[in-house]
């Protein structure tokens, strides 16, 4: 018996510290060339309303992009966009410019930031703790500018849902009353189990555990969920199980049988805008 314990203990010592969250949450360079030159004409913004700023999350600098007037923050609706797993927010420049012009030009102030290690934000994203800290630093800045709960909309795309979920479930300095989940993930466990075919917990490979079903069941306010059934990056059925756990004050889902993870491109701007505006103005 002692021999077996010693063998097991020896193997424990041999285990590596490699955690796959370090691979999953690994950003890349960002150029931050936020101009109209790369935008479709309908998405053009007043370039005087494009602002870059920084906050600090623990010891790291978080790069923020804001489209709008600073004065809007204390009186108007602000959409905080949590981007997907790309090297930097460069990839979502056209998306937030488009959101800024939903309905009419510069109807909403829109903010987006790079998580640690993405773009020019320093440091390394590791798990829910670092994501929450980054979010908190941005939210703190918005609160200082006068943003209040009834004028905040959080819009999470793909892996941005991993930040939005815990925030919506009570982890937001400014409580979230309207949440948009576009092609969200589901849980770290289901990703593990769908990949291996076994009932393995995600802790076999990572300390990063997330479960959007639990988050949504603890989120009391309004939720819009948008998803394509052909999504291979955030599987539809898994996301459905997570999002439909929501029991808050309002739930709306927009499901598209022939759309994939690039939802806006697949369904077109007209439909995308329609669903978003209906929810925002509801």
């Amino acid at each position, binding site marked *: 018996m002692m021999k077996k314990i010693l063998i*097991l203990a020896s*193997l*424990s010592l*041999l*285990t*590596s*510290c*490699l*955690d*796959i969250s370090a*691979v*999953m949450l*690994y950003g*890349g360079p960002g150029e931050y060339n936020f101009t109209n030159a*790369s*935008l*479709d*004409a*309908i998405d053009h913004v007043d370039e005087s309303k494009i602002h870059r700023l920084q906050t600090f999350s623990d010891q790291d600098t978080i790069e923020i992009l804001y489209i709008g007037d600073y004065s809007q923050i204390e009186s108007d609706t602000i959409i905080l966009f949590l981007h997907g*797993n*790309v*090297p930097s927010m460069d*990839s979502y420049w*056209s998306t937030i410019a488009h959101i800024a012009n939903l309905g009419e030009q510069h109807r909403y102030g829109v903010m987006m930031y790079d998580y640690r290690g993405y773009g020019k934000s320093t440091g390394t994203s590791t798990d829910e703790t670092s994501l929450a800290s980054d979010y908190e630093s941005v939210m703190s800045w918005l609160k200082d500018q006068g943003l209040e709960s009834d004028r905040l909309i959080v819009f999470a795309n793909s892996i941005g849902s991993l930040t939005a979920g815990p925030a919506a479930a009570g982890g937001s300095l400014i409580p979230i009353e309207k949440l948009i989940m576009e092609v969200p993930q*589901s*849980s770290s*466990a*289901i*990703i*593990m*189990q*769908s*990949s*291996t*075919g*076994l*009932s*393995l*917990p995600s*802790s*076999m*490979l*990572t*300390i990063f555990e997330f*479960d959007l*079903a639990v988050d949504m069941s603890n989120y009391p306010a309004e939720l819009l969920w948008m998803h394509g059934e052909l999504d*291979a*990056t*955030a*599987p539809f*059925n*898994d996301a459905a*199980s997570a999002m439909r756990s929501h029991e808050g004050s309002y739930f709306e889902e927009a499901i598209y049988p022939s759309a994939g*993870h*690039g939802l806006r*491109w697949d369904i077109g*701007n007209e439909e995308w805008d329609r669903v978003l505006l209906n929810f925002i103005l509801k």
Partner: protein
Amino acid sequence: MFEVYSMIDFVNELFTMKLRILFWVLISALFASCAPTRVVAPLEKGVTQIGVTLGRPRVNDGSLPLVGIYFAKGLSDVKTFYAGAQLTSLYLGTIQLDGGVVKKIIAPNIMIPGVSWSYGANSFISSRDGAFRLYPETGVNAYWKIGPHILNISANTWVDPTWFLSDYNKGRILSPSFGAGYRFRYKWIELQAEYKLLNPTREMHIPQAYIPSTNGLGGKGWYWGAALNF
């Protein structure tokens, strides 16, 4: 302009997906069936075998490198004990061990294949939080032994007694695999090659990655091994 930007964005997304694939590929390092069938034809009594294995289940255009080591010993002429460890899992922080017994049921002759039956278990222990899973397994092998050449076809299944712990009721009790292989066992050396179909009863899914499957079900790949006999 919109179309042009859409294309730029799409290409960007594809590029990003390639970066991310490493994550999803690492996730699948804990596939059921990480190695060739440990022992197909039981060893002679007293013979000890130690070996290394390389599982190569296919993902995207490549194959995973699932490296393992094992030990086997002939307890009698009809019964062999084996035990192994997966080094790739160890690298990722999981202690993955397996062990079991292979029993000869029918001795092979020129006309009739030998048949062996195996039973054992696979354990996973997380070095992060001590989470533990145990998956019993059983299998049957038919093999033809012609001099140093051993040909086999094998069917095996892992049993998941904790299937109910899977999220969203997605657990399955059985995770079967089927293989066909060749072994060259001569004096102190044994070389192994086996092609396996993994979990062909369910859809396997790795986000941002493609698993070559059989009619949309399971995975597949080549498994290799080399061993020394004492």
